[in-house]
């Protein structure tokens, strides 16, 4: 058992919840706003409004939070050792990206008990692109003894807008990290917590979800209904854009994006149509980004003021 201290708190990083708490502690010490996950279905932390929208414009931002993420096409009916349609990311965004971001990241690994003298940690080129968000960045997937544990990105463009200053994003794959720390083979076997009432595993909480949601995502989701919803949310988003409300409009981008992912998992969209759907979501995201920028500008970019 590895115990990590932050201030008065002690975290057992060999439990899943202890690992999360240790990361929260580390990034709190780095002056981050500790946020909560966005309460909509998203494919990654990048879709959190406090990442996507905060990457736009000149205002500085430092935040960290867990994000539950859904990738319907990655479901494996609960049978795969480390792939599922639902997983968690630990999302950290720092804007402007500090010069020592790589070192901070390595320090965070040390803080959760990963010794860089023992483990082969590698920054392997990965040029991230979020086609539905009109966003791209350069960076790496970070490998821990061959396993991708983090997506490390310097955002260059978001919603079609140049990022200036640049936001650095760290998206930790916390299940994978936990597999190492707990020396387990399967995500399902990870210990979520252990205490006076016994042990609860990741599988105890999510195994049934994986099986049922895989069935739904791959085999049962009503594609006609989904196509209809996609069109409706797109219309609703356009209405919000016309009403100059970028935040509700962004929620509708997220909804459309998730519906697209479901249709994709159902293989309901042909190759040529696929590109069309991606463009439709991207088109919305771009307009949201522009509208958000304008709204912040109107407010005088409040976060530029040091309080």
């Amino acid at each position: 058992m590895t115990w990590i201290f932050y201030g008065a708190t002690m975290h057992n990083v060999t439990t899943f919840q202890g690992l999360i708490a240790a990361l929260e502690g580390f990034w709190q010490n780095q002056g981050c706003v500790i946020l909560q996950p966005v309460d909509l279905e998203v494919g990654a932390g990048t879709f959190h409004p406090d990442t996507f929208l905060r990457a736009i414009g000149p205002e500085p931002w430092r935040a960290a939070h867990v994000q539950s993420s859904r990738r319907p096409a990655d479901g494996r009916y609960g049978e795969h050792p480390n792939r599922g349609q639902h997983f968690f990311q630990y999302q950290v965004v720092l804007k402007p990206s500090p010069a020592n971001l790589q070192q901070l990241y390595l320090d965070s690994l040390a803080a959760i008990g990963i010794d860089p003298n023992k483990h082969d940690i590698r920054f392997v080129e990965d040029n991230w692109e979020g086609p539905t968000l009109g966003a791209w960045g350069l960076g790496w997937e970070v490998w821990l003894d061959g396993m991708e544990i983090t997506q490390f990105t310097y955002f260059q463009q978001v919603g079609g807008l140049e990022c200036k200053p640049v936001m650095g994003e760290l998206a930790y794959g916390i299940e994978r990290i936990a597999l190492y720390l707990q020396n387990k083979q399967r995500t399902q076997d990870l210990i979520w917590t252990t205490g006076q009432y016994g042990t609860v595993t990741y599988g105890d909480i999510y195994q049934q979800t994986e099986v049922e949601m895989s069935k739904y995502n791959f085999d049962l989701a009503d594609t006609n209904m989904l196509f209809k919803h996609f069109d409706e949310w797109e219309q609703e988003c356009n209405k919000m854009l016309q009403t100059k409300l970028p935040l509700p409009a962004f929620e509708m981008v997220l909804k459309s994006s998730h519906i697209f992912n479901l249709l994709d998992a159902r293989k309901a969209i042909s190759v040529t149509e696929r590109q069309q759907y991606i463009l439709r979501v991207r088109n919305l995201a771009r307009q949201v980004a522009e509208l958000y920028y304008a709204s912040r500008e109107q407010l005088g970019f409040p976060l530029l003021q040091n309080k």
Partner: protein
Amino acid sequence: MSNQADFLIEIGTEELPPKDLANLATNFATLLQEYLIENSISFAQDQVKSFASPRRLAVLIPNLVSQQPEQVISKRGPALSAAYNADGTPTKAALGFAQVCNTELAQLRIQETDKGKWLFFSSTVAGKETIELLPKIIEKALLQLHVKKRMRWCNGDFAFVRPIHWLLMLFGKDVVPAEIFGIKADNYTYGHRIHHPQAIVIASPDKYVEKLEHAKVIPCFTKRKLKIAEQVAKISAEQQASADLDPELLDLITGLVEYPVALTATFANDFLRVPKECLISAIKKHQKCIPLLSAENKLLAMFILISNLESTDPQTVINGNELVMHARLADAAFYYDSDLQTNLAAHVPALQNVVYQKQLGSVYDKIMRIEKLAAFMAKKLNCDVDSTKRAAYLCKADLLTNMVYEFPELQGVMGKYYALYNNESAIVAQAIEEHYQPRFANDNSPTIPEASCIAIADRVDTLVGMFSIGNIPTGEKDPYALRRQALAVIRMLTELKVNFDLKELFSLAVNNYAPAIKDPSNELIPFCLERLKSFYAEAATPQVFAAILATNTTSPLDFHQRLLAINEFLASPAALNLAAANKRVANILNKETDLTDNLFVDVAKLETKEEQVLYATIQNKEAEISPLLNNANYAAALHSLSTLQAPVDSFFNNVMVMVEDSDLRNNRLALLQRLRSLFMRVADVSLL
């Protein structure tokens, strides 16, 4: 400082893209040299070295002179006629030019060229110190560096491959005073991120490599590559195995480590039930590890990983990699098992939903066309028509399997495995796999004719389709690799040893399209003949190529057979004379522009003995070579025709063709026409 010294620059960065690493460094070195030469600063050009590792690009330029030589500045001013007025006073233009040159009018010279006279200024200025010029040169090289995608970081405006952290710039023992991309140049570097995170002072450029190697960084790309290859060879020998380490993978791995440490790891034997190509793809492509094969070329449940660390506990690194490999292979096994749930043939109707090309229909439409054309060829080849049709029907079905979706490079290979699993015949399975061959210039052609039929039909269908909608390669641009595909068709048709006329194949392929497409033969045939020319760039001289081209044959095999015969014929003593005689005939006929083809030879008007003999010989030869030509026995035909030399020679020695009497003249021309068309049945010998 002495008048020359070594110059070293190292740019310390965050991890650079491994694929571009070697090129970035050589490109940087090339640009630096180019700009130094532009500034007439000399150095030891044959001793320039570049270095590249994940966290640094460096160039060492030995014996760089410290002082730029005197620079000659020359400028041309206005034309003399515009420099002075009629009264000899200087014009505004002349005075202005002198002012720009910072001199007096009297100091200007007159330059005379064949186009006129001009005012001319030339002077010499002292050269600058190299150390003063270096920062601009470096900055220019970094901006011009060929980088696929640049990025910005923090608040900066500058963009580079990855963020820059330090700049080591030494000219001899001196730091070059410079600030580039917001970083001040200094005399230190950093070692391996984990083993030696402290700064390392480099006292002079020649200490660079030694100091870094001491700090667990091998900066030389080639040296690091060799070290990896050696370690892999050692482990393979220990395991009595051979490593599947292609040059591309080796370069990639070299670009991922500063200090390679090879480790051996294993995976569960159970995965070996999955076709080895899938496992190898997962090991190489996803994990950038190296598979090991037995002496029987079977995959072993073992792989080599190249870490970037002398771990305090190598077993941890091995365990971690095994865990990931397990998951990767479990993925491959999942794709394989789930693919087996569906019969390969069941995917075919769904190919209707896969667009091949917007204007050319779906992949399903394409395989229907391939099937027809391949069946036509199979009949003519006398091979297994039913198997050909079945394989053509199934040849693209694996595009809809999970495995090929994940590993596109396994198309064809998976089709074979799944076909066998679904009890398709061995020929069908093999034809599905091989119809993608040849994939590149030196790849093997299909080994069975059934596969060749499909391979050719597929490409011919693509060629006529793409040409009909105007997707014709121009210059460098050939996004659909149509040149390569045409070349493959020519090569396979030649190897098949059965005559297929390109014109006929193209016309059949065009007719297979519904809705109808425009017949692109007018562009496509010349395009293929151009490919044929490059195909025979070595085997045929331009003259031989032209001689065959003149016969208008569009069958690659026929072309090939004629070529072999002519090359053989050219070695015979009769060749030169016969060519000369043909040239004479061709010259005479070509001058008579009004001449119609196929003039009739009137035997009654053959006045001289020489004419009669020549005519009789031509008739004999016509009968003699017909069966030879039917069997494409061009060598024998040419041999037979070479005996025409004597009657032709005596005809020219004794008979005047261009006589006054037009009947007589035309009859003789008709005789020559007959002679020429006889030769033309093999080649235009006059061009040899």
